[in-house]
């Protein structure tokens, strides 16, 4: 089988993305963070971050097609990203590691038109992650008046986003990605104080500590979800959006 895929996770450094685009102009880019419902690789313990499980499941399923993996391993991703890069290298994948830890002061950052737009939340998060590779300009998007906030990484199961109205602004790591500053902790911790916000993290991810801390501090709703949201998670978000 011909190898035709450049795989990546997190937000590889733009210089690495651009260099790889020039090197493989016809390659298909696949974000391994995303759940494509490929068979389980059973590579990790059951109790493990759903996003990192996706990386292994996707990588092993697509192994014969993957040219190389651009692996985010710095503070812009997590320790599990570092471990995954090395384990996949041991399993015969060509892995190029990436640190994207450059940070810019908040007042000098790029604007985040997708996060502030009136697009449905699912579309916002999908555009933000797609734009890691596409690098399109979304400055034309109309800004919405925020009614709610969503803080966190794009969930493994994006269907949970359907509960939120389009006037939901995006914060946390997803906002950092749109601002091209995935390791900017100050931006990751930024929220609008009076905006009712759902603080989301994947179960077994260390960002659960940030989500819980911020939810307590700003009277928001803390939610952690593993692979598929439970009825409790759906119901809590629904009630929070209705009552706040």
């Amino acid at each position, binding site marked *: 089988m011909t190898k035709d895929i450049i795989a990546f996770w997190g937000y590889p450094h733009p210089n690495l993305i651009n260099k790889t685009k020039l090197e493989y102009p016809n390659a298909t880019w696949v974000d391994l963070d995303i759940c494509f419902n490929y068979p389980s690789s059973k590579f990790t313990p059951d109790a493990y971050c759903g996003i990192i499980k996706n990386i292994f499941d996707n990588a092993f399923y697509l192994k014969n097609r993957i040219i190389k993996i651009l692996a985010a391993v710095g503070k812009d991703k997590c320790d599990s990203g570092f471990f995954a890069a090395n384990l996949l290298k041991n399993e015969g994948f060509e892995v190029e590691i990436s640190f994207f830890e450059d940070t810019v002061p908040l007042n000098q950052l790029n604007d985040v038109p997708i996060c502030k737009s009136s697009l449905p939340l699912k579309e916002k998060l999908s555009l933000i992650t797609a734009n890691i590779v596409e690098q399109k300009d979304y400055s034309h998007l109309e800004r919405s008046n925020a009614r709610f906030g969503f803080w966190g990484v794009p969930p493994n199961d994006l269907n949970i986003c359907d509960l939120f109205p389009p006037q939901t602004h995006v914060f946390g790591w997803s906002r950092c990605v749109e601002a091209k500053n995935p390791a900017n902790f100050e931006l990751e911790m930024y929220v609008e104080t009076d905006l009712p916000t759902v603080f989301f993290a994947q179960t077994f991810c260390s960002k659960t500590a940030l989500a819980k801390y911020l939810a307590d501090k700003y*009277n928001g*709703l803390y939610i952690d979800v593993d692979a598929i949201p*439970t*009825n*409790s998670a759906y*119901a*809590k978000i*629904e*009630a*929070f959006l*209705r*009552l*706040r």
Partner: protein
Amino acid sequence: MNKSKFYIDAGTTWSKILEITPLNERKYSIYPTSEARKFDIKYEKMTGHTSDKNSALYVNEVVALAMGAKAHLENNFIALDLGSRDIKWIKYKNSKFSDMDWNSSCAAATGATIEMLLKFYDVKVEDLEFCEEKYPVTCGIFGLEKIMDDVSKGLAPKIAISKFIHGIAYNAYNFTKNPEKICISGGFCENKCFIDSLQKYCEVLPLGRFVLVDGLALRP
């Protein structure tokens, strides 16, 4: 001619129905959910685990609890609904929503378990009395194991079940983040052993079994 309006809280085991007549009389009734399913009634609003969550008439259970409890209570309160298979609570501070939680995943240590234990050991709920000791029921399965072990050693089943209920009350107190006062909604309002157990930890105000249907009737 005006007709009565009906609201239903269709729980896992019991369905609570509120009828508001054209003369604005309120009639409350309770049926086993298996029986209530057969009724040919057009409801204005519905809530509860067995109601159709995709229906336009469905109201989220925490929202129904919040609306119903607000009608009964002052500006600051915590209302806890302990049902057959789930536990949920809501906190209002200065008349505004402040906090909540809902665990619908673990049904091990809630109303249905108690009903099963009472039937299994042939004990009447009114025979249960507050017991100073409690079983740890963070996991209901381990709690059940404790009951069976102790009964096999000669402990009276009603004492063992009371210790289990005390464990549930203690869990409820911790789940609601250890408040000074809890307002209770649901079938446990009628369980004196549970109320007495919870009173060991905080002030308790039972609101009855119809808080959620009252909330439905209030909600526009």
